Structure formats: C-alpha cells, structure tokens
C-alpha cells in the first residue's frame, strides 16, 4: 500500500503540465449557471463525505485506499493524450474505474478534490466552474460507470467486459454532460437541442476513440486487481467471492 501511495505521489508531482480537455475554464459559464451547478454538486459531495466517514469507521484502512484512488483520478484526468483521428488532445477521466472500486458517491468526493487541486495549481478547469466540472466528471461519470458495471454483471457479462463498458460509457457520459452544461448555459436565443448536438458532435472525433481507450485501461486495471488481489475487491464489496 505504501509503495502504491508513494508511486501516486511521484506521478502527481511529475504530471505538472496542464492538460487541455473537457474541464470548463474560468469565466465560460454565466454566474447563475455556475451557481446552479454548485447547488447540484454540493449534496453529492456531502453524501460522499458521509459515506467516507461511515465506511472508514467499519474499515479504518479504507481512507488511504480512497486517497489512493483520488490520486489516480487526479493523474488520469491530467493526462493529455493526442488523438490522431482528430488532431487534438484530450484526457480520460478515471471516474468509471473509481466508481467500480469505491462507489459513485465517493467518486464524486475524490473527483471534487482532484478538480479543486487542478483549478488551483494547474489552471485546468476553474474555481467558478468547479460545480459544473464536478457534475460532469464526478456525478455523471461516476454514477454511469457504477450503474453500467452492475447492470452488465446482472446481465451475465464477464468482469472484464463490465469494466470495459463502465470505463467507456462513463467517459462518454462525462463529455455528454459537458455538452449539456455548455448548451444549456450558452444557447441564448438559439435552440438548446441544436447547440447540444453541435457540441457533442464536435467532441466526437476526440472522445470516441479516447472513450474506447479508457474502457480498455479500466478493464486492464480491473483484471490486474482481480488476478493479483481478489480479496481487495471482495472486501470493497465490488464482487462476491465466487465471481473472482
């Protein structure tokens, strides 16, 4: 565990270049909309804090585990990846994988910490748009990833496939929510639907392959944990003993 934490800290300090991607920058959203997304995000963050307190009371070593996953989300959502099909860069989110491991409400919590640090130190995202970014990456990404993983498992999908779908669809859900946020705030006198589709289509050449890549990475990491530390997933109640 200590080695993992050390590795994550080193990665955080190495990864100081600001990525350029879905995070909404400072000033893009009008003040009422920025405030609205804060109102949406705050109850989920509070829910995450409550869940962290409850679960770490039961298992005290759960707290460093959540911190470790928070560090992973921070690093993953900072990595600019060039996408040759689009000629531009974007980043994966890591929230699908986090949601599988620690649950969606704690994913919102670790995402809010990661986004706050990125806004403060890396000019990645913004403080006024923090609520909107938490909503798209933490809430939409986390809950979609968690829901898809468990739905796929219920439908009899193998673990790797469920993790792949969770990673891929959580990434796409994040960018769809960003499109929704932009369109709802900035459509003006034009059609909301028209702008939503336009933004989503503009994201597609970059995010379509990147979402698939995120799915592959999520499945790879998940299968690695299954093969090396199956008891970790059982103790986190991700899977039952007979499934691994």
């Amino acid at each position: 565990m200590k080695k993992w934490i050390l590795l994550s800290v080193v990665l955080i300090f190495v990864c100081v270049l600001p990525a350029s991607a879905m995070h909404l920058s400072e000033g893009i959203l009008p003040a009422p909309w920025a405030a609205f997304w804060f109102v949406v995000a705050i109850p989920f963050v509070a829910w995450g804090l409550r869940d962290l307190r409850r679960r770490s009371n039961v298992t005290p070593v759960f707290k460093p585990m959540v911190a470790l996953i928070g560090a992973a989300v921070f690093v993953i959502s900072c990595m600019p990846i060039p996408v040759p099909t689009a000629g531009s860069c974007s980043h994966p989110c890591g929230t699908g994988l986090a949601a599988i491991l620690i649950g969606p409400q704690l994913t919102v919590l670790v995402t809010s910490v990661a986004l706050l640090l990125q806004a403060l130190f890396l000019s990645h995202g913004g403080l006024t748009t923090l609520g909107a970014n938490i909503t798209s990456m933490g809430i939409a990404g986390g809950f979609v990833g968690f829901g898809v993983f468990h739905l796929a498992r219920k439908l009899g999908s193998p673990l790797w496939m469920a993790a792949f779908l969770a990673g891929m669809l959580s990434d796409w859900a994040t960018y769809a929510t960003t499109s929704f946020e932009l369109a709802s705030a900035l459509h003006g006198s034009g059609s909301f639907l028209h702008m939503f589709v336009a933004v989503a289509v503009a994201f597609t050449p970059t995010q379509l392959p990147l979402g698939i890549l995120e799915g592959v990475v999520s499945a790879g990491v998940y299968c690695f944990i299954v093969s090396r530390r199956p008891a970790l997933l059982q103790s986190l109640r991700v899977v039952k003993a007979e499934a691994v």
Partner: protein
Amino acid sequence: MKKLLLYPLLILVLVVGGYFLLRRSSGKWAGVDETVVEKFARAAGHPPHRPLIDTEKGDLLLFCFLVAGILGGFVMGYCFHELFPPTTSSLTSKQPEAEPQLESSRP
C-alpha cells in the same frame, strides 16, 4: 523472462513510434477545451478569462507544489496513525508475515 523483456520492448516501440508520428504530423494537438469548448463559448460571447489564481508566472507553480508538498507531508505525518491504524484486519489478501517465535526458541 521473455515476458519481462517483451513488455518494456513493446512500450518502448510504442513510445518511440508515437513520438516520431506526432512530430511528423501537421496537427496542432490543441486540447478540446480550445477546439470545442472555447470555440462555442466565444461564439456565445462568453470567452474564458485568466484563472483567478494564475500560477503560470515564472517559478510560482514550482513554489506552490513545494508548499503543497510540505503541508501535505506534515499533515500525513501528523495523521499517520489515523490513516494507517495498527490493525490486524487488512483490505488485501496478503497474509501478514509470521512473527519470529522468540518464546519457543528459549530453553
């Protein structure tokens, strides 16, 4: 042994190949925040403004990371026992190594 060599070699080929491919490419590799988000925001009359806390001035970012590292390290050290409580139950499947049986070795 073969696997040990194969994986780093594969990664090396991918990294070197990717590097030369990207260098030869004429793409600007701007982020989607610039190519998508900012484009629509500017069109709607809401261009992004400078960050409220602008750390992109000289070595200010480095200083911020230094301060954050010192504070983080101090807090982590101060709360060490709370973060890593001395408990027998563990999240992992690894069994704790057996303690040396000092008592049994005594006559």
